């Protein structure tokens, strides 16, 4: 029975170790189809972004280094708490660049909490039959050249391609600048009908307003900048290599640390798990925990390895002569044998 328990114990420990290793390997290497996932090579993944720039997925907004750093927030699902917004505001205030790409209500919760003059009208989409890279729903917006001197990340840009962007509203008394606008020939429609083709000439009941519309805006906060894009898909693989998108990303992300927020996404995506691993690693690396964990790890390894290598507790009673068959025994078993002999009178 003892041997059977030992086998089961070893089996459980071995399986758990293998399972964890397999799980970590899958999270880091296995392709998936989750939106904005670094392992997603498809149209809605961010594989290209993560493979070209120094990107780190994070699950907490507090304590980020803001110098030479960009915080990228893509299509947040959960609203930002006041603490989250303060962390982001401080990041920008200290010189970091915050890039928000999305059209969700959660995006507006951050912009409002940070007291920016920018709001996203996520219920509307922009169509443009003239300036587009494939069809009406995929407009190319024109960079506001007068803002280039104010914001260096616009240098050398003329047009940026988007995918069903939402218009932005800039408050009249704010310090925000429109940095990209749709053409004067663009339309605004409700999201529910945003995929319907609108006739260029004449009236259409689905058209709410006509362009130009602001689709990207920027505002300086302290020594940093907040950039808002009304397009949740802007950083995905599908918009890579179109118009001046790559140049914009190069201007934003070259030679800086890019943090991607996963704390406002659906939990347990590949990205959030990666962020969790990164956080765990970061915390484990902190003094003095790193030394304690190393000691613990070595200790556990020392305890476990003999179990695997030798199959059970150490035995005693090794025979003294090699030429004679060696008999091994334990005191407990010998005692049991003695009891048996007494019981059966042999």
């Amino acid at each position, binding site marked *: 029975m003892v041997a059977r328990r030992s086998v089961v114990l070893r089996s459980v420990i071995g399986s758990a170790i293998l399972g964890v290793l397999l799980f970590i390997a899958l999270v880091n290497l296995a392709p998936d189809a989750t939106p904005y996932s670094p392992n997603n090579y498809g149209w809605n993944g961010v594989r290209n972004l993560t493979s070209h720039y120094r990107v780190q997925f994070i699950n907490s907004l507090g304590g980020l280094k803001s110098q030479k750093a960009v915080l990228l927030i893509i299509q947040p699902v959960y609203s930002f708490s006041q603490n989250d917004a303060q962390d982001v505001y401080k990041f920008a205030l200290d010189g970091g660049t915050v890039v928000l790409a999305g059209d969700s209500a959660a995006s507006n919760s951050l912009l409002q909490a940070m007291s920016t003059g920018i709001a996203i009208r996520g219920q509307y989409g922009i169509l443009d039959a003239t300036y587009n890279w494939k069809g009406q729903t995929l407009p190319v917006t024109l960079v506001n050249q007068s803002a280039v001197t104010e914001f260096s990340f616009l240098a050398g840009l*003329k047009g940026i391609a988007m995918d069903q962007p939402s218009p932005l509203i800039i408050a009249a008394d704010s310090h925000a600048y429109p940095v990209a606008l749709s053409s004067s020939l663009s339309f605004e429609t409700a999201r529910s009908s945003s995929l319907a083709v609108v006739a260029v000439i004449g009236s259409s009941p689905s058209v709410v307003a006509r362009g130009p519309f602001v689709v990207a805006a920027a505002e300086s906060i302290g020594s940093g900048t907040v950039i808002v894009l009304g397009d*949740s898909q802007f950083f995905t693989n599908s918009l890579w290599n179109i118009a001046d998108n790559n140049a914009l990303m190069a201007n934003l992300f070259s030679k800086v640390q890019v943090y991607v927020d996963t704390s406002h996404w659906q939990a347990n995506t590949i990205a959030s798990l990666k962020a969790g691993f990164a956080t765990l690693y970061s915390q484990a690396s902190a003094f003095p925990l790193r030394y304690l964990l190393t000691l613990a790890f070595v200790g556990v390894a020392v305890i476990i390895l003999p179990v695997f290598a030798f199959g059970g507790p150490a035995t005693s009673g090794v025979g003294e002569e090699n030429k004679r068959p060696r008999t091994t025994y334990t005191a407990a078993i010998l005692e049991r044998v003695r009891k048996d002999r007494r019981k059966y009178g042999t």
Partner: protein
Amino acid sequence: MKRTNQIVAESAIIGFLFVLTVVGGSFEGLSRPAEWAVVSNPDSVAASHDSNALSLYYNNTLSLLGEGKFANVSQLLSSFPFVNVSPSVNQTALTANSEIAAMNVSISKAILNLTTAGQQILAHELVNASALAKTGCIQAGAASSIFTEFVNSTSPALASLGVPAQPYAVGKELARTEISSLGSECQSLLALLSRPNANLTISSSQSAIATGGPVSLGASLSKQGASLSGQSVLFYLNGSYFGKVVTGAGGRAQGNLSIPFAYKPLGVITATVSTNDSIGLQEAASNSLDFAILFTGTKIVLGDPSVFLPTFGFTVRGSLTTASGTPLPGASVKIAFFNETSYANTSPAGAFAANLTVPVNAPDGVAYVNATFAPQGVYGPSKNFASIEVAHLPLKVTLDVPKLSLAGFTTNVSGKLTANGTAVPGATVRVASPWGEFQTQSDSAGRYFLALPVSISEFAPTQNLRVSVTPPQAYIVPGQATAGVSLLNPLIIILPALGAGVTAYELESLGLMPKLGRSAKKSDFETGRPPLASPGNSLAPTANSSGITLVYFQAVALASRRLGINFGESATMREMIGEVRKRDGPGAAPFSRIMLTTEDFLYSKEFDQARVKLAEENLTKLKEFWSG
């Protein structure tokens, strides 16, 4: 545990971990407030080209052109690469764009020239006005012909490719109106300038004038053959008024006038007479006379400034005179220092001064300040120079690294910065490492400290670090230092050890490990294996041990088969003997002896090999007892 059972159990545990993750994620997702934005794959969007959209693009462009918003037209044309145009239309559209771009240039230039011509007429610069008007008219004519080409050729070509002309009719009309108005303005100006009026002719016996020096000028004024006397003739040098003469009898005038100081090689003198309604005289312009402006034999005297350090400013002073020492006022002297060029105007006494700064990147050594006069002229250029000495202080950088660093953890590097024996605070320190570039600043004592996170994926035994230091003081030379870091990755030890342990366990569990235990182990559990036996206890079998265990197994198997006893896996030898004794008294004795001999072999410290033979004899007896 059987192999298959073990594999199933282990797979179940691994699967359970994944199920926990998936189920956990699903539960977590239940509280999500909204779905992801409903967006579709752009690859599924069919490429389409709207010809009406291109027409509207041209309407916008031509409207801006007609409204005179030329910069907007240029911007719109530059954005054309982002317009979704059918490949079949693209070439013709590019032709239309080039025509619009050409009109944009021609119209803007025509407007500028014609407007300036009008201003020149008001300023009595009729010669210039005439030239400008002619140029403007040429530009207006070019715009008109390009527009005609667009309307008569390109627009129909676009229409034949499915781009309707109607949507850009409004813009086209605005452009046409603009071009037509330019043509009208052109004709009006030319008519004004060509109206017959008085004839004013000027002449001089000179072909060259010393700058600021005298010139002898004559003038003759007549109208329709009749000379006009008593009229003031105003003279201009390069557009600047410098004197007048009054016509006398025969409409002639002669005078010696001094020109202002001019420092260009060519001087153009023109003259005008003003309107005098009492004698029906309209404003008239004369012919122009070209003179060579002489300013030979100039010289520059520069004072040598003191020695200054980089980033420090100093003033260079000098004077400009003719060779004979006459000061030249209002002259522009070019001062060149490193790659910077500035200009200083001479005072009425011919003196000039310039404030210069030694550049941050000035190399060590002698640097020259060059002063040059009349760089555009062919006569009388002069130059001189002064020099300063530039020197930088060397920066001493030390870099201290730990003797051994662990991958996956941070390693601390530090050092000190000194220049000329003094600490250098506030310097920017950049450390380039294989794990990224890091930056800090030196403290007030010139020390710096950085914690570098060594990547867990770093398996190299050594890596180099390079420190580059940029001091805030420009007169200190940036410095650098390198050092090697010895590295140890714990994973090199842990992972192989862990892998070896798990592999050994799996091989052992699955029976794939080379056998180390008794040879009979495989079948022992069927017949009541001694509780002591375990895989870890197995030793290499010997002939003797094989003999006694073989006897033991045969005895147990015989008892099981003949007496119908099902020995449990946990049954002890005493229990086996008891069971046999209950079923068969005579067979119990030899069976018991075999059992006890086996027990002694297994558990005693010493074992008499002769007992193996006795056990075999007892087995023979058993077989005889139970043969029936």
